[in-house]
């Protein structure tokens, strides 16, 4: 795969040499060792020397509680295999025990995984890098106060929270075979993060990710779920991935992207049911990279470890824009890759239950939803006088923090989503034009220009509550759903 010369990017890669030695337990499919296998392949492919390699810090409890609840992190910090019995009740509460076992060094493992993603996000924020990679991250099932699906601390959410300091809108894309429920839930009610997840849906972990789950409150239409069926192959995947992501870029206009590269969507995965090859999986990385936005790549699932390391090695090469040989270089784990010792894998003959018609229909429905987004281009920034501050909108914010909305509030949400769309968005259309994605193949602005832009961001942020979307009211109205 020849990459264009301009696709050479500054790539930062996060890895701790200890990560491979954390062990979930006998028979557990999650094997951090796959990250080490990837690392060794990178070294022997000569990709290592082309990146900035960082050993991440161990994320502190303070950092983790930016998302997670204090008591949950406290629990994770204290629990050990030898004191488990004292924590029976909490283990139940936090869903630690079965899928998410207590193992030696559990907390450290979480610290490294989260530390990598947070450091990577900070790196992107400082514009010290264009692409950051943390294969030790991507644990997308972890919830605010709950472990789930082999994930304890949601490094992705922590990373995105970090990105949000500098980016008005962050796009999260998830190509793990499982629904990225932890990230979706965390940002379900905000319009600053759009979560887009491609996943197997139907009688499959975690059970969420219905096409109809589109976000709530301000976040309505900011969760995009692509429910898929068994046997997705490269061609089908691209046929849905490309139009959806293009449309999302066009309508949401993020200024940074996080891609969760769960490799359990590969063919032959121990837990997966898709039929993607390493090439098809890597194609997604390539496509997202082309948008030229600050780009954070994280790992995720992947339970046939030889294929996981193949996949992430290849995707690192894609991020670097470097072509690598199909012949695997010799390395400590070379024997794992027998009998062919090749980088690329072939799809199986499993049938693809995703018909073109099905994918087409899904796509069209999602397009309909995306059309509901307030349309940014062409919207003028309009100064709003101080006295125009709407009390209601403030109440809104407070109420939103509550667990459940009073009925009156909710009715409003249901009936007039357009009116309630987040004000910050519309107020900064002009600024966004400079910073966010606009069209494929467009190069990013130069760094210095971007830095200047940050100041602007900060400026408008100051006044965000004042900027009511007056100018925007007319435009999206016609897109208001008929049921509203």
């Amino acid at each position: 795969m020849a990459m264009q010369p301009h696709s050479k990017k500054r790539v930062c890669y996060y890895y701790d040499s200890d990560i491979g030695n954390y062990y979930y337990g006998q028979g557990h499919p999650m094997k951090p060792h796959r990250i080490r296998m990837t690392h060794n392949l990178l070294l022997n492919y000569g990709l290592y020397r082309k990146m900035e390699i960082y050993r991440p810090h161990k994320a502190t409890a303070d950092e983790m509680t930016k998302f997670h609840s204090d008591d949950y992190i406290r629990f994770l910090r204290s629990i050990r295999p030898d004191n488990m019995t004292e924590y029976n009740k909490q283990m139940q509460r936090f869903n630690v025990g079965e899928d998410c076992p207590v193992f030696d060094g559990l907390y450290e493992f979480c610290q490294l995984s989260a530390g990598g993603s947070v450091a990577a996000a900070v790196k992107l924020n400082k514009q010290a890098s264009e692409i950051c990679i943390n294969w030790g991250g991507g644990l997308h099932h972890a919830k605010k106060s709950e472990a789930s699906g082999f994930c304890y601390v949601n490094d992705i959410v922590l990373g995105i929270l970090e990105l949000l300091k500098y980016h008005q809108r962050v796009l999260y894309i998830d190509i793990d075979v499982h629904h990225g429920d932890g990230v979706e839930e965390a940002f379900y009610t905000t319009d600053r993060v759009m979560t887009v997840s491609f996943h197997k849906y139907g009688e499959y972990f975690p059970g969420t990710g219905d096409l109809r789950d589109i976000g709530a409150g301000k976040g309505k239409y900011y969760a995009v779920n692509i429910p898929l069926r068994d046997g997705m192959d490269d061609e089908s995947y691209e046929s849905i991935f490309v139009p959806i992501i293009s449309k999302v870029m066009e309508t949401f206009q993020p200024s940074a992207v996080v891609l969760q590269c769960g490799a359990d969507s590969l063919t032959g995965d121990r837990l997966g049911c898709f039929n993607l090859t390493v090439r098809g999986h890597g194609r997604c990385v390539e496509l997202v990279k082309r948008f030229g936005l600050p780009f954070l790549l994280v790992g995720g699932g992947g339970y046939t470890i030889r294929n996981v390391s193949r996949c992430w090695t290849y995707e690192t090469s894609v991020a670097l824009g470097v072509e690598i040989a199909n012949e695997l270089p010799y390395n400590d784990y070379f024997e794992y890759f027998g009998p062919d010792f090749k980088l690329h894998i072939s799809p199986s003959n499993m049938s693809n239950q995703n018909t073109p018609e099905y994918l087409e229909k899904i796509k069209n429905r999602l397009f309909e939803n995306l059309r509901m987004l307030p349309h940014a281009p062409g919207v003028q920034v309009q100064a709003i006088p101080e006295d125009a501050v709407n009390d209601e909108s403030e109440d809104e914010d407070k109420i939103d923090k509550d667990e459940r909305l009073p009925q009156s509030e909710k009715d409003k949400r249901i009936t007039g989503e357009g009116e309630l769309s987040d004000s910050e968005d519309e107020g900064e259309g002009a600024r966004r034009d400079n910073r966010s994605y606009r069209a494929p193949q467009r190069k990013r602005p130069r760094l210095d220009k971007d830095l200047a832009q940050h100041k602007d961001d900060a400026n408008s942020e100051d006044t965000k509550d004042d900027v009511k979307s007056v100018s925007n009211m007319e435009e999206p109205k016609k897109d208001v759903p008929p049921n509203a």
Partner: protein
Amino acid sequence: MAANMYRVGDCVYFETSSTSPYQIRRIEELNKTASGNVEAKVMCFYRRRDLPNPLIQLADKHQLAQSEDSPVAMKLKKICLKTPIGEEQAAQAVLDPALVAMEEESTELPGTDGLAPKQRHQAKHRELFLSRHVETLPATHIRGKCTVTLLNETESLLSYLNKDDAFFYCLVFDPSQKTLLADKGEIRVGSRYQTEVTNLLKEGEEEPRNSEDLETLVWTPEHGLTDRQIDQFLVVSRSVGTFARALDCSSSVKQPSLHMSAAAASRDITLFHAMDTLHKSGYSIEAALSSLVPASGPVLCRDEMEEWSASEANLFEEALDKYGKDFADIRQDFLPWKTLKNLVEYYYMWKTTDRYVQQKRVKAVEAESKLKQVYIPNYNKPNPALLASGAGCAGGKAAVLNGGTNATNGTPAPLPHLCASCQVTNSNQWYAWGPQHLQYRLCGSCWQYWKKYGGLKTAGVFGESEAEAVKGARDGDETALSASHRPHRCTVLNCAKEFKLRAHLARHVATAHGAGEGARPVMKTRAAFYLRASPFTRLARRLARALRRPRHYARNPFAPINLHQVKHDCTLAMAGAGAGAGAAGAGSAGAARARGPVGAVAARLAAAHGSAAPRAQDWLALTPRDRMPAPHHVAFPKPPKAPDGSLMYERVASRAEIEARRNEPAPAPPLKRRAYDDFNGLDSAGAGAGAGREAGAPPPAKRPNKHPAPMQRPSREQYAAMCARAQATGQPLPAHVFTHVNGKPTNLTGRGGRRHVISWMDAPDDLYFRATDIAKAGRRTLSSGELRRGARAPWRPMRGAGGAAGGAAGGALPAAAGKAAAGAPPLQLVILD
């Protein structure tokens, strides 16, 4: 080829019963058994027809709530599926009368709006219910692949109807709890679940953390070195490593050859160290080289693989064998001087060794019983329900059915079949379908449809009610589900008998309707019975063209009558005449409504009229058995009683059973054959008797009427069972199977116009009479009056005629009487007028 390759994860049809629809299963595991057979561990999908009724309604409601198209669903969905206050809202919404009204309008599946009624009907056949129920089935019962997908709201049901073998599901059925669940997780909303979103940094606000606090740079591509220089440095560091191993005593013991030392020095740990060294030396090769060879001697990097001694490695393997991959335990009991990380790292490296590969091979052999896929050739054996088609396969298979008798008998041209589903009369293949006595036929394509989708292509014509009846009859469980509080009632049309225990019902269904299925052995039933024609039957007899050959039917009582044809004819004949049509309708709907015994009816009526609990009139009650007039001579004394009070009968296999067994591959247990009793003076009738005695020889099916056959008289029920059996084995009906009701008159106690079935235990033995040429000749000497009289009173000895004639008369009589038995409800055909 690929089509016959079944893999784990495939959804497939399983045939567990020849007459019922396929079962739809997903293969979870394929295991080779010791005997070399392949067993499939499968997960069950249920059809609508498998679910109890209340759940079906629930499912429809759920569908409605999910449906995008209907306004009510829109409202419901918005409230209950999309927002936090789900259930209360939904409840409120349902309380809204407008909503309720709308809801009642449609209980159809979503997306059916644009569908024609027929498609709507068929769409229901495509809905399945997922379950977590797992069972094991022989892989050879696989009959093809299908697909089952979670229905997506964007899809129209038409897309499933347009594809063969495509099913969808929305809900999960728990067969033990009898519950339905939506298989859908939930994204929760509230401050306990969402994160607080960080604000953009304000102007002048800086990220407070330094990168140095968050990360440590270990390599940068911004160096002055070329790739070549880096590669050279890597070679140098490996050389230093090799040299260091030569100097190291412990290493030289382990690696006696230079080769091995070089290989050990080429492991990734040395390379990583070299890269680190370069980085730390500021990418100066010179500085890096000197730090590779400090004053203390050349740098030696060893990973766990090399660090471990041979004995440690042995210990590890032993521990692994004993504890599996429980490294904490291994460490504690075997290698306490290692850390857990040591163990894990070593383990993953050990997996690259030959020793592991060997072990893996052993394991692979062990795991051989677990298959990933299995090849099952197409199943080509004809289904037992396949009806042999007339002249086409006369060669030994000609069914002695009205529709299929061959011309040699001199019978008129076969009557056309009529498909119970699509009404076609032309098909290459015909299948018996539904309860035996209804004699429904399905054309080839409708049969395939029935097997795959579990229903008929069209609704209502002959109704799915029959199909439901079959289902109910087949599965006592289902009946019990829908009527758990009521007595168990037989669901076969026109029967509706009630039983206190389900087991009794099951036995009744098996014996009386022959619907026992292969699983339950059909009992040797000896129930004698008596049938009185209802007015409708008589009416039908006169109206139906198909039946205007009473003599033929009297002579061929075993010949089933095409009931569709009869119904069809009656309907046509009665078209226009309102009353007549009503009667026909009543007739086809099942004339006999189950009202219970007359006594009970009287009691109910009396109660309705206000008289307080009147005693059943004596004259209404059936005479208790012990007060019945005793026969002068007990021809068949009761057999001895077993300790539990049951009568010990010798089991006597029916002819059909014998034949059926002969056709089964499995060896049948040796059958005790019992001497056949002769009646009607056949013994004295010499030739006739002689012919009738050839019990053992199976009659060639080709010209059954000419062939001597055993003396066996199956009852009506038994006849039905035999038919089922014969059809189930693909055999034509044996010619000798016809009924003969000249048993003991005392057993014919039925009077009230209902069929009265005597317990099989009380019934006389089976008798079969075949008219020989002599008998026929003798019959001809009788006047028609005498013949009729004989037919009405078959037990009465014939006067006037000689032995041969007597035998002949007897021959005619059973045939006539037998007709009564063979004719089946709802439209009974009895030639005795």
